[in-house]
Structure formats: structure tokens, C-alpha cells
């Protein structure tokens, strides 16, 4: 018995068993998949066969030697000798071979792995489960499409629409579910995603949805052709498979989201007068929307406190959360009047700001709670006149100059640091004043106070304020003065740049601008610790301000009739000669009846009109339903002989026509006999 033969005695059964076991494991799975996909099953089967072969190959002589050595002590770790070429063995090896071969031959009968029963059973169970799953799996059947009617005769060989489905996915904020429609016409919320699933028979080379306004949605080919778009505006379209006649027009209306409507539920009146001692004020609103109002809303509360010219405004924003259904939310709160700053006389204005899903921000009506001031002691109607307007809390320009001159005088006695500090303090004053004037020119506020630009004239030259100088400065931090005169922001055209502010006449504006420039230079020098250099600028600024003060005439541009100047020489004299007996010409009426008449002539049924004029007219026509008009126009364009289409277009164009002012037609003249008759009866009288 040669060595290979001896080896084969053990390896062959092992190989066979391993291969068969692999096949027995893989084959049922492959067979099961055949139910689902035959090519996959063949591939799996081939893979199983390859795996079986590869597995069988592993059972070679090396495996046999290791297995004999491992399993049988009789081999005495010399199993390799069994299969070596005897000619290469030494005498000792031959002796060992003789020792072990006998024992091995007796002991080792079956070296193959046992049948992997567990795995086989698992494989068969898995195959059975797979078969069951394939057979019992709910088929992912596609919903059948709705039959379509495109209004065109079916011609064999010409692609025609046979099935249709329209899926509408409304925007998320609407909260509406997606829905499938059997028709190609729909009314959907604006912003909805529209998905078409269409079937053609026979399949066309290409297909698209052609909108009348030029939009196109190309359909992806397949057993079912699909296309999708997000609908922003309404449109008319037709399904256009390549090589097929045009079918019916379909219409999709985009229903625009409506902004919320805010209704006041409480109080009843817009203007409520506060009762004495009232501390709280309840306001309730209801906001309605087509899809839903955001639960969070803002209540903007503006407090106008103070009297006369010393009214301050403060705006607060409170967050409210609504209750009730999303389409009709109710917002209510009770405002704490002292907390809102309404302690004395003044107004409290509350306004609800709501948003909806489409990001419409709507401000509701303003509700006003008014607390009247106590009756004036004088009761003479002069209370406005005697009311004290507090001076601006600013250093005047003159004061800046005085301070700077004083600083220069004291220069020798001061340390350089103290000198610089004082110079900078004066520079701060100068800066505040500059910003105040800049504010009036329409510039940024920069936190400056609100004093009249010309109030420095009233300020005495040596009026240096201190907290204990014997008169009241008003509550600190609450600028009581000047806000009422903040007329630029309120009435003027305060554009972004001060140059365009129209509060002042150009000359005053230029002077004021120059003054601010001078202040800027002065401020820069003061902050740099050089009052001597600042003084010329400060003086120049003072001169300019004085000029402005004397010349200031604030005016606002008005739009209206420009009357001719009054002739003072003639006025009140009673002379009327040379008065031109003319009446002003009437401005022409706008409205192009000729274009409308040309458009109407194209459809009114007499002869053939100018269709280009009709199209021009329809492009600019303001009608209730432009899509219907476009559809009717398209129908007539496609089939000029269709009397019903023409009649429909005629009706829609008639609706688009506006009625010109009533004209007067001449009555028909009398016939010769009639004239004789009328002459006769007219002459007899």
C-alpha cells in the first residue's frame, strides 16, 4: 500500500462528507431563493458548489497528519512517516514507521468530521422559513392607477395615457395628510409637492407635463412614468407623451395661504378709559387661520407715560401662549399696569402679533387703555402754557468753550495727567452735544440724550449743573425732555443718511452739518488733551449754532395743489379785468378701450379678428379666473372651428371687458316723409 493510497483511505471519506455537508447546507437555501429569483438561486447554487469543493480541498495529507497525531496516541506524533516516501526514511524512521503503522491501521478507521447535523437542520429550517416568507410575504403590489380620459381618440401605435394618479403632499405646516387623487385636476395648498404617476400604452420615447405658461415637468420613464414638482402658483398643463396628439388641459389650483386674522374679544372698545385705582387690564384676542396659528404670540405693549410734552414711550414685548384649536387660538392676559409703567396719566397700547405656519406675521388691532391726567388746578386752558419744560441735561457749546478756556488758564497748576483727564471730560461733553445734533440731522443716536438742538441759547453761560444746585433735574435716567420734539423720526423723512433728512431747509441743514463737523474736530482735540487746538473749532461751532437758531424754520414737504401766488395789488379791489375765461383742461381718462374693442372683435363672432390683439389684451386683463381664460384661449387656438370653445372664450373675454363711460349715440334721422310730418306739426304751433 503506497503512501498516497494510504492517505486517501482517510481523506476521501472526509472530503466527501465535508462537500456533501456543505451542499446539503447551501442547496436548500439556494433552492428556496429560486422561488423569488432564479438567477440568484443559480448563483447561490454555484457558490455553494464552489464552497463545497473548497471545503473538500482542505482535507489533504497535512490535515490527515495533524488529525492522526491529534486523535491517536498510537501515532506517537509520527503520522507523517506513514505517508512519506519510504526511500527517504532513515533506519530509525523506518523502525518507528513500522511501530506506528500497525497501531494506526487498527485504530484509525474513521477520521472524518461528523455530519454537522445542527447546521444542516438549521439550514433546512432557514430554507423552509425562507420559502414560507417568500410565499407569504405580502406582495408590494402597486396600487392600480385610475383610468384616464384625455379626450383624444385612441390610435393604435400612438402613445396614449392609460392610467393616472396624482399624489399631493401639502407643506408640513398645514398639517394636512398626503392624498392620492384619481384625477389630474386638483386644488392644493400653495407650496404642495405634486407627484404624478402615469402609465402610457404604448410607451412613448419621452414624456413631459407641459404647462401653458411654459413650465415643463419631465417624466422619468418606466413602467409607470413619474414626475414631481413643487407647486407655487396655479397652472394649466397637459400630459404630452412624445409623438401623441395634445390631450385635455388639466388644472391645478394653488390655494394661497391666508394670513391669520386677529379679532379682539376683550375689551369691547378700542379705547378704554382706566377707572380710578385700576391696576390690571385684561385683553383677549382670537386669531384665526386656515391652517393654524402658532401657539406662541407676542403682545407688544407700549406705555406712553407723562403729560404734555414730557411723554415717554416704552415698548415691551410679552410672550403669550394661546389656547384652543390651532385654527382659532385664543390669547388672553391681564396686564399689570404699575409693572408696565403706567402709574400716572398716560396710555397703554397693546397689540397682538401672531404668526402662522406660512410665516405670515400679522399685527392685530391696537387696544388703548387711557388714564386721564388729574384736572389742572388752574382750569384756564393754560395748563399747556405753564407746564415747565425741563432743560436738556447737556453741557452747552458755550459751556464747552468756557470750560476749555478755564482749563487752559489752569494749565500750569495742573499735572499733565489731571489736565488730560479734565480735557477728556470736556471732550465727553462736547461729544454728547455733537451726538445730539447729529441725532437731529438723522444720524445714529449713540445713546445721547434728547435735547432741543437750540436749547443751549437758553442755558446761561455759567450755568454749571450739580446735583445740589437748587433746582430739580428730573428723574435720572428717564429722559423727559425733548422726546416730544423728536419730530424727525416721527414726521420727517429720516433716511438712513442724515443728508437726505428733509426736516430742515437745505441751508440750515448745511449749517448744522458744518457745526457738527466743527464739534467733531473740537471733540477730537479735547480728547487728545489739546484744548487750545479745540477752541477755534468750538467757537466756530457756536457761531454756526447761533445762526441755525436764528434761522431755524422747520418745515415738512407737502404734496398737494400748488396755488398761484396771490396778486396783492389786485386783492380786495373788486377789479376783474384780465381774468382769463378758461377752465382747466380735464386730465384724460386712463383706459384703453380701443385695445379692448380689438380684442373683443377677435371673438365676437363677426368675421375674423386680430388674435394678436386678443392675446395682448388677455395678457394684461384683470380677471377673476385667469386660468379659465387661458384654457379657453388655448382651446380656440387649437381648434379655431370649435363653436362651443369660441362661445366660452367670448363669455370670458366679455367678463374681462370693463364698461366704458356711457356714450351717447345719435338717434336715427327721420325719413323724408317723417321730416315733412315733423315740419308740418312743428310749424303749426
Amino acid at each position, binding site marked *: 500500500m503506497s503512501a498516497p493510497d494510504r492517505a486517501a483511505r482517510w481523506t476521501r471519506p472526509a472530503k466527501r462528507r465535508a462537500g456533501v455537508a456543505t451542499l446539503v447546507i447551501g442547496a436548500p437555501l439556494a433552492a428556496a431563493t429560486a422561488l423569488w429569483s432564479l438567477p440568484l438561486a443559480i448563483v447561490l447554487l454555484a457558490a455553494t458548489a464552489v464552497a463545497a469543493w473548497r471545503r473538500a480541498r482542505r482535507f489533504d495529507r497535512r490535515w490527515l497528519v495533524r488529525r492522526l497525531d491529534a486523535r491517536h496516541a498510537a501515532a506517537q506524533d509520527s503520522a507523517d512517516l506513514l505517508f512519506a516516501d519510504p526511500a527517504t526514511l532513515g533506519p530509525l524512521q523506518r523502525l518507528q514507521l513500522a511501530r506506528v503503522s500497525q497501531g494506526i491501521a487498527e485504530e484509525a478507521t474513521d477520521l472524518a468530521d461528523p455530519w454537522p447535523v445542527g447546521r444542516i437542520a438549521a439550514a433546512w429550517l432557514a430554507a423552509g422559513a425562507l420559502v414560507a416568507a417568500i410565499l407569504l410575504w405580502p406582495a408590494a403590489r402597486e396600487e392600480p392607477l385610475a383610468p384616464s380620459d384625455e379626450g383624444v381618440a385612441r390610435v393604435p401605435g400612438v402613445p396614449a395615457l392609460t392610467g393616472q394618479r396624482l399624489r399631493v403632499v401639502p407643506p408640513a405646516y398645514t398639517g394636512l395628510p398626503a392624498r392620492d387623487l384619481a384625477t389630474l385636476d386638483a386644488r392644493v395648498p400653495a407650496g404642495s409637492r405634486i407627484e404624478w404617476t402615469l402609465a402610457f400604452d404604448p410607451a412613448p420615447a419621452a414624456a413631459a407635463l407641459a404647462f401653458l405658461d411654459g413650465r415643463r415637468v419631465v417624466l422619468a420613464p418606466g413602467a409607470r412614468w413619474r414626475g414631481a414638482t413643487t407647486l407655487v402658483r396655479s397652472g394649466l398643463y397637459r400630459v404630452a407623451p412624445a409623438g401623441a396628439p395634445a390631450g385635455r388641459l388639466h388644472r391645478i389650483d394653488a390655494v394661497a395661504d391666508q394670513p391669520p386674522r386677529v379679532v379682539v374679544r376683550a375689551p369691547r372698545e378700542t379705547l378704554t378709559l382706566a377707572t380710578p385705582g385700576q391696576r390690571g387690564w385684561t385683553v383677549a384676542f382670537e386669531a384665526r387661520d386656515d391652517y393654524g396659528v402658532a401657539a406662541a404670540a407676542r403682545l407688544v405693549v407700549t406705555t406712553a407715560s407723562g403729560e404734555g410734552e414730557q411723554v415717554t414711550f416704552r415698548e415691551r414685548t410679552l410672550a403669550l401662549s394661546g389656547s384652543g384649536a390651532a385654527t382659532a387660538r385664543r390669547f388672553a392676559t391681564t396686564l399689570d399696569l404699575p409693572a408696565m409703567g403706567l402709574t400716572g396719566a398716560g396710555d397703554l397700547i397693546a397689540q397682538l402679533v401672531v404668526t402662522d405656519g406660512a410665516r405670515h406675521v400679522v399685527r392685530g388691532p391696537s387696544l388703548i387703555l387711557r388714564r386721564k391726567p388729574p384736572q389742572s388746578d388752574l382750569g384756564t386752558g393754560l395748563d399747556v402754557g405753564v407746564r415747565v419744560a425741563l432743560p436738556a441735561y447737556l453741557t452747552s457749546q458755550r459751556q464747552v468753550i468756557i470750560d476749555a478756556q478755564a482749563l487752559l488758564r489752569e494749565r500750569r497748576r495742573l499735572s499733565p495727567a489731571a489736565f488730560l483727564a479734565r480735557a477728556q471730560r470736556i471732550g465727553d461733553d462736547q461729544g454728547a452735544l455733537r451726538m445730539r445734533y447729529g441725532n437731529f440731522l438723522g444720524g445714529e443716536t449713540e445713546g445721547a440724550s434728547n435735547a432741543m438742538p437750540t436749547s443751549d441759547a437758553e442755558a446761561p453761560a455759567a450755568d454749571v449743573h450739580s446735583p445740589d444746585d437748587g433746582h430739580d433735574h428730573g428723574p435720572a435716567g428717564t429722559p423727559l425732555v425733548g422726546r416730544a420734539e423728536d419730530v424727525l423720526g416721527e414726521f420727517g423723512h429720516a433716511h438712513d443718511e442724515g443728508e437726505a433728512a428733509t426736516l430742515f431747509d437745505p441751508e440750515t441743514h448745511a449749517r448744522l452739518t458744518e457745526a457738527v463737523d466743527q464739534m467733531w474736530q473740537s471733540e477730537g482735540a479735547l480728547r487728545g488733551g489739546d484744548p487750545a487746538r479745540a477752541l477755534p473749532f468750538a467757537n466756530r461751532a457756536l457761531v454756526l449754532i447761533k445762526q441755525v437758531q436764528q434761522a431755524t424754520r422747520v418745515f415738512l414737504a407737502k404734496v398737494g395743489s400748488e396755488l398761484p401766488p396771490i396778486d396783492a395789488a389786485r386783492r380786495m379791489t373788486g377789479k376783474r379785468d384780465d381774468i382769463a375765461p378758461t377752465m382747466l383742461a380735464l386730465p384724460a381718462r386712463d383706459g384703453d378701450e380701443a385695445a379692448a374693442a380689438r380684442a373683443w372683435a377677435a371673438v365676437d363672432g*363677426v368675421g375674423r379678428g386680430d388674435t394678436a390683439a386678443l392675446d395682448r389684451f388677455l395678457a394684461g386683463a384683470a380677471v377673476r379666473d385667469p386660468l379659465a381664460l387661458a384654457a379657453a384661449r388655448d382651446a380656440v387656438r387649437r381648434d379655431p372651428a370649435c363653436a362651443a370653445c369660441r362661445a366660452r372664450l367670448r363669455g370670458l373675454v366679455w367678463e374681462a371687458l370693463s364698461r366704458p363711460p356711457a356714450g*351717447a349715440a345719435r*338717434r336715427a*334721422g327721420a325719413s323724408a316723409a317723417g321730416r315733412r310730418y*315733423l315740419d308740418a306739426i312743428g310749424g303749426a304751433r
Partner: protein
Amino acid sequence: MTAERWTAALLALAVAVGWIRLIGWRRAAPARPPAGRLALLLTAQPVLAVLLFLTLYPPPTGPATDPELAVATRGASPGSADIALPEAPRGSAPVRVPDLATALRAHPGTRRIRVLGQGLEPRDRDVARTVGVAFVPAAPRPGLVALAPPARVAPGAPFRVGGQVAGAAGARVELLDPAGRVVDAAGAAQDGSFVLQGAARVPGVALFRVRLRGGEAAPVPVVVTASAPVRVLYLAGAPGPEVKYWRRWAADAGIAATVSQTAGAGIDLGEHPSPLTAATLARFDLVVLDDRRWAGLGGGERGALAAAVRGGLGLLLRVTAPLPAGVRAGWAALGAPVGGAGRGGKPARLGGADVPVLTRWDALAPGGVTLGRDAAGVPFAAWRARGLGRVGVWTLADAAALVPSGHGERFDALSADAVATLARPAASRTPSVSDWPVVGERTTVCGAGPGAQVVAPDGTRVALLPDGGCAGYWPRTAGWHVLADGSARLPFHVTEAAAIPGLRAADRRAATLRLAAMPGDPTPAAAAPAPIPGASWPWLLAFLAVAAALWWFERRGRGAISVEKR
């Protein structure tokens, strides 16, 4: 009779020629035939001639015995008539004739026809005038029986459609615009009459419809044409809203307006011819004048105004205050329907609650043609014809209040109505087309010039051949036709007869009633009716038989002669 005499003479000549030939033959014959034979042949010639003559002119059978003929027309009950016209229902009479003229020829001696059914078609009406007509109309079919579409309308102008429904008093009648929307609705009055109001838009044609609620509908063709602007001289005694808004309307409506308003102390705003003379007034079609301005006119100007009105000028006299007796007398002398004793203004409501209440001066005299009335039916403006012109009186003091209150269209309509009614008539007469042209029936077009054509909807052109000023046209298709007369284009609408059955039935009924009401003076031809020609076939048969026998006899004789020759 001439033809008969000529025929008789020819036949006599033929008989004479026959005789001469027979006698000549006999003389030339070698063997003399028997004399009896010759006598027979000679006798046969006149007999044949007489038979031939009688074939051509069979002897009359004598006049018809029944002078009245019962004629079945559309809608006749079955089996009641002698003859049936084509429109009569099947089985209404044993004999069917293509028209009434054929029936009268077939029944000479008919003096009267008794018309059964709805009445005679236009085709038979001329013939029916030659006989007496008896007609007892059935009750008119319920539905629209009369409809008067507006004449030519100016752009934007309101128009009225009048009509009548039968058998449905109080029925709701609606006017539908070309878009199919209801623009006006009214209930029919006790007698079935109704008036609906619509508004024209741009120049062109428009087909409105009148619909009986729950019933039939009929088309209302409206032709909107812009005519030459009316020239108006507006003389106001003072500036005011009336002048202002009237001027605005006139400018918008394309009126050639000359406005003048006095501002006192001799100041006259605007330009106007002064003084008014016949020459200056000839440049205008309408003069609008108020009482203050009238008071300032001189006697010569008033005379020129009166003369101009007689010549065709329109004159609208506006009452702005209680009329002094002098002004009233002056206006009455002009022919204006002015009167009334009331001195104060009275309220005039033109519409619902949102229309402001206007003031009406009580200055109208009865007897004028009403130009406008308020919602309660009280007239506030009226006119009277004076020569070729018209003089109107306008008593609304503050119609301009309509404009700022949002009813400008109403003010415009009032102004347009007044101007259109009173202004000088158009100088040239436009051709006219008969009412309700119907497919397949004669349409009369009158007043068209030479070379006028009718263009059908399908583009075919038919030249008209006027005869005595009018031409006939037989439309082939329904729809808008255009009468092209020179450069003028007059559209008219042709309707399918089935679309207006009620109007057609009413027209037949009215026309037949008119025929029946005509005094019975049958024409002489009908008084001495032509005798009925007898049947000619027996004479033809006799002629053929005698001629054949004679031919056989002569043939046989000739054979005998030839035998004898041998």
C-alpha cells in the same frame, strides 16, 4: 285665347291641305279608287283636327262649387282642413300643397280661405290678400311672444330690452350677458310685458339673451357702434357740481362739449359763442341751458334758439330753482313740457337705500314724452318734439350727488340718455334690416346703396339687388352677418327659426289677423274665376284611336292600289 285661335287656324289649314292632297292624289291615280273611300278619308281629316284641338284645349268642366277652402297651417288639428300647407302637421288634411298659391290655382273659384292653426307663413301672405281670410286664432302658446332688441347702442351706454310673455303673468324674466351672467331680472307685468336693462361695453356686437325663468330663452342681438361725437353747448348759470361732473362725463364719453359757466359780474368761465345766432347754433347738436342762463338771454338769442330747435337742434332746459312765471312762459313758448305749480323741491329716489335722495323741482307739465323717472315712477324729465328738434326739461337739481356717493355710472347713464334722446338726429340714414331675420326666409334690407353686399359668417358674399329701395336676402346660416354698404358695416344677427318659436308664432298670428281684418275686396280675377280645364286624356285617346284606324285604312287602300296596279 290667341293661342287657341292660332292652333285652330293651323289645324284648319292642315285639314284644307289634306283635302287638296287627297283630291290631287285621286286625280293622278291610274285606277280610280272607289268614291266611298275618298269620302271617308275626306271626312276623317276634320274629325282628327277637332280631336287634336280638344286634346290641347279640353273643354272646361264648369266653375267650382265651394267658394271656401279650409287651409291647415302649422299647429292645425288633424283632419279638419281641405288642404295642408307644408308646415301643417301630418294628417291634418287629405291634400298637401307646396304653398297657398298652388292651392288656390287648384281650387279656382275659391273666395275665402279659412286658416286653421297658428297662421300663414310670410310666403303665403301676399297670395292670401287675393281672397278673404277667416282666422280664429288659438290662445297664444305660453312663453315669449314679443321681444324688441335695442337699436344701435353707443359704447358703455345702457339699453333696454322690451318684450312680452304669454300665459305667464308675473313670470321672472332675466337678461343674460354674453358671459351667461344675469345682468337684470324683472317680473312680467299683468299683461306679460317686461323691460330689462343692460349695458353695452366696447364697440362691436354682443349676443345677450332673454330667459324666461324655467322656460325658453331667446337671443338679443346688440350692436354697439361709436358714432360721430355729439356736439353739445352747455350753458350753466353758475359753477357747480352738476357742471363739473357733466363735463367729466362728456370728456370720458367722447362728447364734443363746449361748457360755459358764469361766475358773476360778467365773468364767464369757458368759451362759448356769444351771442347765440342761427349760424352759431348750427354748429351744435344740443344746447343745455338752465333757468339762470335763460334769464340772461336776449330776445334775439331766444328767437334763434327756437328757430334752431325747429331745424333739428336739441334743447335741454335744466330747472335749478322754482321757475319764475316769465321763464316758464318762455319755455312753454319754446314747446317745452313745463308747468307745475309746486314751488318746493321734492325728493326723488333713483334706487335703493344706498343711492342718495335727490331733489326734483315740480316743474313738469303732463303731455311730454318721459325721459326719466325715479324709482317710484314719477317722471323727472320729459321732452316734446318741436319741428325736427326736441325740447326737454330736466328737473333734477342735484343729480351730481350720485357721483361722489359711488353711483357715477347712474349719473353717466342719465346724462347719456338725455343727450342721445334730444340731440340732433344723424344726417345720413343707415340701411335697415327687417326684424328677426331667420335662416331660409326672406330678409328685407332697405336703404342700402348700390353695390351693397351681405357677408355671411362663413365669409360668402352676396350682392344685393335693390328694387324700389329694398332688397331681399335669404340667409343660409345663422349667426352674425354684415351688411357692407360702401365703407359702412352694419352687423345683423340671423337666428334659427327654432330658436325663437314663440316670436315666430306670434308674428304668424298677428300677420294672419291683419289679413283677416282687411276688408274683403277680392280682386276681379277672383270674382270671375277661370274655368277649370277638363281632362284632356279621353280626347287624346280618341285622337290616337281615330288616327290609328285611319292609318290602317289608308295603308290597306294603298296596298289595294298597288295590287290593282299589277
